[in-house]
């Protein structure tokens, strides 16, 4: 077991290294001098000698692989550089943005699971029934719905027309928990739809698969009600692939955060990325993209390990 976990952890190291190389190179492919990356627009005021001195100071006159190693070393030590806009350390800019994104993501995740699992179960029970068709329609609709459409409709009806919930902005959880919850409900619903679509689809095929197995027939034969069969024997066994999807979908949550935090004016990671890109604050862009990628890699690792714990068969490979 320990061997399995160690193997999986070791397996993510090349991906992490490669990801960091890609993020590093992406930022180096920016047009213009990389000193822009550090100084932002203010470099125009500097003379050529000063720029050359700065190039030396930041090691930009060294070969690119040495530059990468130096950058990777600093990053591992927790030094992400300074924001080109506010000149604060990048981490100080980034840290307060994590909670809003996390809060919306968690609520969305919960909503999606609560809707999708029952829907998938009902669809799987009766393939071809109207419930199954409804499930298919919901799945397709959720997958095709742009965040700004569902978000726009929710804002227009629930916030602007009926005034039930705030249209935009974020109240920190520590300041006023109830207001904070109210300010994140609409973004969370918006984010949950596409997640629910993917989950419902996976739940349907996963449950349908388990329903075919012999132990379900046995459970029915010994006189359990359909409800007991579904809850104890089908859903419990069919949850594993669904858990996997939840981990893989962390990336979707971040993609969604970019649009949704723009729609609802939420000061989270997604909006920070957009602002940094629009403001050419490349140290911040670099840090955010790296942080998100690493989070996705670790989420996949966690899912793999949990999967191995729950299902001994997968430990072999």
């Amino acid at each position, binding site marked *: 077991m320990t061997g399995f976990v160690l193997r999986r952890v070791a397996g993510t190291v*090349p*991906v992490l290294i*490669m*990801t960091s*190389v*890609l993020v590093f190179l*992406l*930022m180096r*492919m*920016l*047009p213009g001098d990389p000193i822009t990356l550090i100084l932002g627009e203010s470099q125009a005021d500097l003379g050529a000698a000063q720029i050359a001195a700065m190039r030396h100071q930041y090691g930009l006159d060294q070969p690119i692989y040495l530059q990468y190693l130096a950058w990777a070393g600093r990053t591992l030590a927790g030094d992400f550089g300074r924001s080109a806009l506010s000149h604060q350390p990048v981490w100080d800019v980034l840290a307060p943005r994590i909670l809003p994104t996390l809060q919306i993501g968690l609520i969305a995740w919960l909503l999606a699971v609560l809707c999708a699992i029952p829907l998938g179960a009902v669809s799987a029970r009766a*393939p*071809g029934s109207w419930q199954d068709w409804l499930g*298919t329609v919901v799945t*397709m*609709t959720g*997958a*095709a*719905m*742009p*965040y*700004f*459409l569902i978000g*726009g*409709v929710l*804002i*227009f009806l629930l916030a*602007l027309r009926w005034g039930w919930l705030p249209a935009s902005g974020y109240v920190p959880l520590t300041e006023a928990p109830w207001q904070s919850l109210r300010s994140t409900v609409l973004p969370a619903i918006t984010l949950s739809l596409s997640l629910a679509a993917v989950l419902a689809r996976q739940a349907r095929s996963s449950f*349908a698969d388990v329903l075919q197995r012999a132990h379900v027939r046995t459970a029915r034969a010994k006189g359990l009600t359909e409800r007991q069969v579904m809850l104890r024997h089908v859903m419990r066994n069919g949850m594993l692939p669904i858990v996997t999807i939840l981990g893989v979908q962390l*990336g*979707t949550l*971040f*993609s969604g955060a*970019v*649009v949704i935090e*723009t*729609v609802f004016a939420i000061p989270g990671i997604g909006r920070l*990325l*957009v602002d940094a*890109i*629009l403001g050419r604050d490349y140290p911040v*862009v670099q840090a955010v*993209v790296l942080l*998100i*990628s690493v989070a*996705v*890699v670790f989420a*996949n690792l966690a899912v793999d390990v949990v999967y191995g714990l729950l299902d001994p068969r997968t430990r072999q490979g």
Partner: protein
Amino acid sequence: MIALAGGRPRAGRALRMPGDALARAGLALVVVSVGMAVLAPLLAPFGPDAIDYRAMLQGPSPAHLLGTDDLGRDVFTRLLYGGRLSLGVGVASVVLAVVAGVPIGLLSGYLGGIADEILMRVIDSVMAMPPLVLALTITAVLGPGLANAMLAIAIVAVPAFTRLVRGQVLSVKHEDYVMAAQSVGARPSRLVLRHILPNAINPVIVQAALGVGFAMITESSVSFIGLGAQPPTATWGSMVQVGFQYLETAPWLALAPAVMIFLAVLGFTMLGEGLRGLLDPAVRARG
């Protein structure tokens, strides 16, 4: 594409499957949205950039079916023309992704070894970045604009095709018929193109249909954020961006193009999923 399915020996049975209804409904949506885009000059009652300061932010009326925008331009007309770019960028970026991704997948799967290993790690790390985050970052690096957004989306879409094709190659590489062809002296290029590639075509078609939907959603998001189409060029996504400023007073400005994106993406998604049901024997058997 329906003809393709119809040509199969078991078409008679397959036609009653839900996949078929899904594919048909999807195809209908795709045909309608592409038709509206292609016929825009014939259908549009006004010019796409015809500004009318006497008719700004008007609601839907017989003269302006979907009202007018902040510069008095006819929203219906701009939807038709915006669709040309939105659909065009969606299809073009998928074509680019197929042209790049399929050969890489073929080579990687066929050659195997260290080249395959390195390539797959690169693909793994590209896939670790959420698609929209990566597309935005690449667009930022290339510079804002619709052409760069298209290129960025194509790059983001490549790994899906590469992985798909590589998987297909690996699954048939050691089949008897490939070995047989090899043993009678078929050159590698012939092996790959005549014996291995045909197996990958159906899944690639399915992925391409789904990919157009993905590309359109991504383009609309990039344009919504302001890095895609730059004014006066308008795609559905950038129309939503402008419309959002008037959500309270003129909701049709944001919602009409958003609904168009939804319908077109839904069409491509249904077409893709439907075709998957029709073309993939494993899915078909499960019903």
